[in-house]
């Protein structure tokens, strides 16, 4: 037993506090919005919007209203719009409290790789490098291992980096780990996952 995608998203939502401005990445991080409950959270879309609403009803799509994944979305009563330079100004300036993102690899020193695989089609980093360098807290949500069963939680990243020493917390299907001095610290185990199981799936040094 381990957490599924929705349980990982639900666990990640616990990281968010009332009043936070937050940027959610594509994939499992997008699901986090479903679990914020009564907390007053404002979602940023880095193409130039604070206060991102849900997908529109069929027929209500507006080509002038999309999120950073280029999907049609809606606005809320609190929404504001701004240009890309202002948007990344608030990211670079540390005004966004947290970013929750997916990853290909994370290392024990907080290095993050999530934008390119050498030899494969390179699409670009988009806003990922700006986000991880600028926001207050970087939380990675990903599967603990890849489809070959190899650990994605490593001593050192093998892929080109998105950011160096930028990750604060890692939430995987097996549990929650924090980047700490000398390695990763186990914060929590997923339901039905033993510490031994988490350790054996982790290449990175675990310090406690």
């Amino acid at each position, binding site marked *: 037993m381990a957490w599924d995608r929705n349980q990982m998203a639900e666990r990640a939502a616990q990281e968010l506090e009332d009043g936070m401005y937050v940027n959610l990445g594509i994939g499992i991080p997008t699901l986090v919005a479903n679990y914020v409950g009564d907390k007053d959270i404002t979602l940023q879309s880095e193409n130039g919007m604070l206060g991102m609403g849900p997908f529109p009803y069929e*027929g209500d*799509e507006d080509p002038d209203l999309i999120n950073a994944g*280029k999907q049609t979305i809606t606005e809320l009563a609190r929404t504001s719009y701004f240009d*890309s*330079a202002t948007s990344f100004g608030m990211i670079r300036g540390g005004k966004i409290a947290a970013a929750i993102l997916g990853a290909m690899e994370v290392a024990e020193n907080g290095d993050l790789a999530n934008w390119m695989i050498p030899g494969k089609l390179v699409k*670009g980093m988009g806003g990922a490098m*700006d986000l991880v*360098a600028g926001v207050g807290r970087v939380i990675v949500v990903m599967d603990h291992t890849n489809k070959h069963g190899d650990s994605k939680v490593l001593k050192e990243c093998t892929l080109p980096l998105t950011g160096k020493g930028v990750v604060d917390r890692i939430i995987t299907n097996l549990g929650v780990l924090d980047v700490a001095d000398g390695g990763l610290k186990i914060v929590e185990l997923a339901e039905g996952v033993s510490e031994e199981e988490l350790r054996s799936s982790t290449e990175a040094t675990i310090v406690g």
Partner: protein
Amino acid sequence: MKKVYANAAEALDGLLHDGMLIAAGGFGLCGIPELLLQAIKDAGTKDLTFASNNAGVDDFGIGILLQTKQVKKMISSYVGENAEFMRQYLSGELELEFNPQGTLAERMRAGGCGIPGFYTKTGVGTVIAEGKEHKDFNGETYILEEGIFADLSIVKAWKADDTGNLIFRKTARNFNPPAAMCGKICVAEVEEIVPRGALDPDQIHLPGIYVHRIIQGEHEKRIEQRTTRKREEA
């Protein structure tokens, strides 16, 4: 001061030359200057470098200029969704300079503000930082990025008055203001040109000082990823 032109071809008359650097607004297919891109295609201008967050799709946006091989180089943050782009890039016909999205936006804004370079944390310790000046401020390392000074800016807005004051709509604003600012000349296409005085001066997003030529036209405004939710039954 005559800024209003009849159509995209007339608005670009005398501004295009082979090998030029063009800054274009838009994010994905949202808020792109689709009429001006079509007119550049029709003009046949070659060896273009585009500073633009994305490269459109195969048959829309900058993609139409890739099909005719008018683009030499792209300065972008993300170029997925475009098969012809990938083909030309992998075969070496097209140069590509990846910029982190916020760095690209700030390079444009800086260029428009007379700032030749700025330091940022974005990309430190990654391939983006290779060959760039590093400097420490208060114990943190930053890299030097340069402002973009474009020969021409092409942008899309919602409304303009005849003096070039622009208002954008929702997330179609995106890269348009910084792209408009960084060009020697800026041409804007809008959905509606309104009489002078019809725009509230307090609500102008981009003052007309940055905008030299304006056209009004019909926009397709294509949606790239149509996502919806079901209406709950009453």
